[in-house]
């Protein structure tokens, strides 16, 4: 049994300590919004927040998480009301959508640390792959949040 703090709740998971957080979330905690893309820390589809910082959950073992607060896409807001979610909807960002949970969490972390990011800041912080090529819309959505015009 491993205890994790997921989206504000204490959860006991019956998984080995060397299980990557990604698979513990998906298969053991039933939170499938976090996606598997590469399993090697290369794509960011599995991005979640750990005490507000982005981590690639496919290369983080649950035994190493400790008491840190995990935020997944499901925990961002109960009703798509987070400013980043609203901006994503306003810009019609997602295409296939598969990368978007990770992208949104990366944008949340960026905007928290840097509420008015420049394009260079966005380039440096948004390092997840989007195979559908939604980059310019994500950039526009991030600027939209920064300007406070999310809807």
């Amino acid at each position, binding site marked *: 049994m491993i205890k994790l703090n997921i989206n504000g709740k204490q959860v006991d998971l019956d998984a080995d300590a060397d299980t990557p957080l990604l698979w513990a979330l998906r298969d053991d905690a039933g939170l499938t*919004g976090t996606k598997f893309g590469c399993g090697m820390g*290369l*794509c960011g589809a599995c991005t979640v927040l750990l005490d507000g910082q982005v981590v690639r959950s496919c290369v983080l073992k649950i035994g190493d998480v400790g008491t840190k607060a995990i935020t997944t896409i499901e925990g961002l807001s109960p009703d798509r009301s987070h400013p980043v979610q609203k901006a994503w909807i306003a810009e019609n960002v997602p295409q*296939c959508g*598969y990368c978007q949970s990770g992208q949104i969490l990366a944008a949340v972390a960026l905007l928290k640390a840097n509420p008015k990011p420049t394009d260079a800041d966005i380039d440096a912080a948004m390092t997840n*792959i*989007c195979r*559908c*090529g939604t980059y310019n819309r994500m950039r526009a959505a991030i600027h939209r949040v920064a300007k406070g015009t999310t809807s």
Partner: protein
Amino acid sequence: MNRTSQPTSSPLSRREFLTSALAVGGGLALSFSLPAQEGGPPRPAGPPAAPRSPSAFLQIAANGAITIITPAVEMGQGGHTGMPMIILEELGGDLKQLVVKDAPAEKMYNNPLFGQQSTVGSFSVRGWYTELRRIGAAGREMLVAAAAREWGVSPAECTAANSVITHKPSGRTKTYGSVAALAATMPVPQNPALKDNSEFKVIGTSPPRTDVAPKVDGSAKYGIDMVLPGMLVGAIKAAPTVTGTLKSFDDSAARGMKGFHSTVALPNGVIVLANTYWQAKSALEKVKVDFDPGKLGGIDSAKVSALLHSGFNEQGAVVRNDGDADKALAGAARVVEATYEVPYLAHACMEPMNCTVRANGDTAEVWVGTQSPQAVQAAAAKALGLAQERVTVHMQYLGGGFGRRGESDYAMQAATAAKASGRPVKLIWSREEDIQHDFYRPAAAIRFRGGLDASGKLTAMEARVVTSAAPSFGGPPNAGFYTSSVGDMVYDIPNLKVTGINKDIGLRFGFWRSVNQSHNPFMVEGFLDEIAFATKQDPYLFRRSLLQHEKAKRHLAVLDMLAEKSGWSKRPAGHFYGISAFAAYGSFIGSVVDVSMQDKTIVLNRVVTVIDCGVAVHPDNIVAQLEGGMVYGLTAALRGEITLQDGAVVQSNFHNYPMLMMSQMPKTESYIMPSTAAPGGVGEPGTAPIAPSLASAIFAATASRIRSLPLSKHNVDIIAARA
């Protein structure tokens, strides 16, 4: 009012109508049979279109909910928005009452243009446009007739919009939901009047896509998210060569591991089943597997290239022969020659291949994101030993398709494991399996010879197209197919000969976003660019001069719009532009790439894209597709390459098959040509022009001609401009 009429259809089936009407519980369901749409591109051999029942597409419930069953799946291209919009336009339905459902695997949903139920080839809107409009229009006429009967007035005195019928003289209104049950008893109009384009209220607007909201909170369900009671999860290891077969395996080291269930042998690999994916993957790593490499054993990329080049010396099938190119080339004042080549490419959908199967005795269910529901149904049925119609396919969102999910190899494997284990199975491929067991965009090459007369006019061209496409479903590809954009070019060249030859290496061929247009325009446009520079002509004006005829009108208009929007004639000092334009998927597409130099680095300032796709159903989504397609093409042009070593694909994950990132994303401008022509394709064309336009811009900037891809092989450094 100016309405257009459609040809009369076959009569409705009364029995089918009643059955369908019952199915929606007192709401409206329509039934008539529609003929397959004529006048499209020639249909490849395939089953004839089945009669269509409109109730299979449109149902209105008493509470007003408008359920539209879309024959196009949603993989990010907008199928769940564009298709319903076309019905809603003619129905006069309120977008807010729309409920979208995926069509089940059934012949009724075969695309009228090519006779298969597949979301491929940018065929959805162009294939379904007229039929969906007729379905919507018939629904509207039945609802109006029902309201008119209740009021005791003539239907001609009524109008319908936003899901409300209005009796104009009295101002009385009724909602669609309130008359849906009565409407279901009305005769189905076999020849419903369609709106004139000028009356469109939905088509040409950009409402929020129906799939966007669930994609920002993690609630969108993809195939990989499926969970069933008692389900096992499978991890797979297939032979390193895609032609390989399983010789033997030893799973003794895996057997005691936590969660391990069993190992399933496949003809070409093994699947380890366990309670969770991580357990399955961990156990799989302990299984020793021995493979026979099959036909690809010993093949490497150098051999592939040599084989392609050997094709230049063979006859090949003649697909175009205008005038006498041999003679004209022999007598030309000057001959320009060039050889172009591109490598294999993998699709790399963001969601790795996966499929969930539950066998229930004499029936089975499949949960999957697929572009081809019937192909999945057939594959699972075969593996389970069931008749195809005993298998139900539950469609999920696709985490990318790009042609890869038109195949159903993973469904066959999941069904095999479900049968062997007697449990529901979700099979998930690793990224490594995904990249190394794809159906690949073939490596291809073209050798061109262009003949110029004494005045420098291009009088002759010969193009020898060589591809490396192994037979896939539907048999070996024919020369007319893989020479598209070469054999059917509309440039005015009096003596033109195009031949095609397929040197099948054995690596399986796949439809990769924009298919043949992912390489042929790069080569044709590149060679034309060479001719323009060889004869000291402006690349835009040179192309223009070859497009002065009726058949090239739309092509030329796109080229001109590109020049106008990009400011071609007013290029700022230090900016170098490249241009290309051509026909693709029933549309006309082109781009201008604007670069400048920073020491030896090429700075990508912007990409200007123009499409003429006929009627633009959802302009904002078209722009998104143009941008997304461009990224797909640019990713390949910069660093995309699948190579073979001893028959096996060398690349395995995103470290050696890299994707374009945010920091490399150029500024984009996209323009849609205003048009009332029938819709063309949108999802694929956007991928094609970036490579030729970029290569043309690089030449303008550096005088170095890029004749093969990816650019990483040419030591070209490219960065995206940032303000």
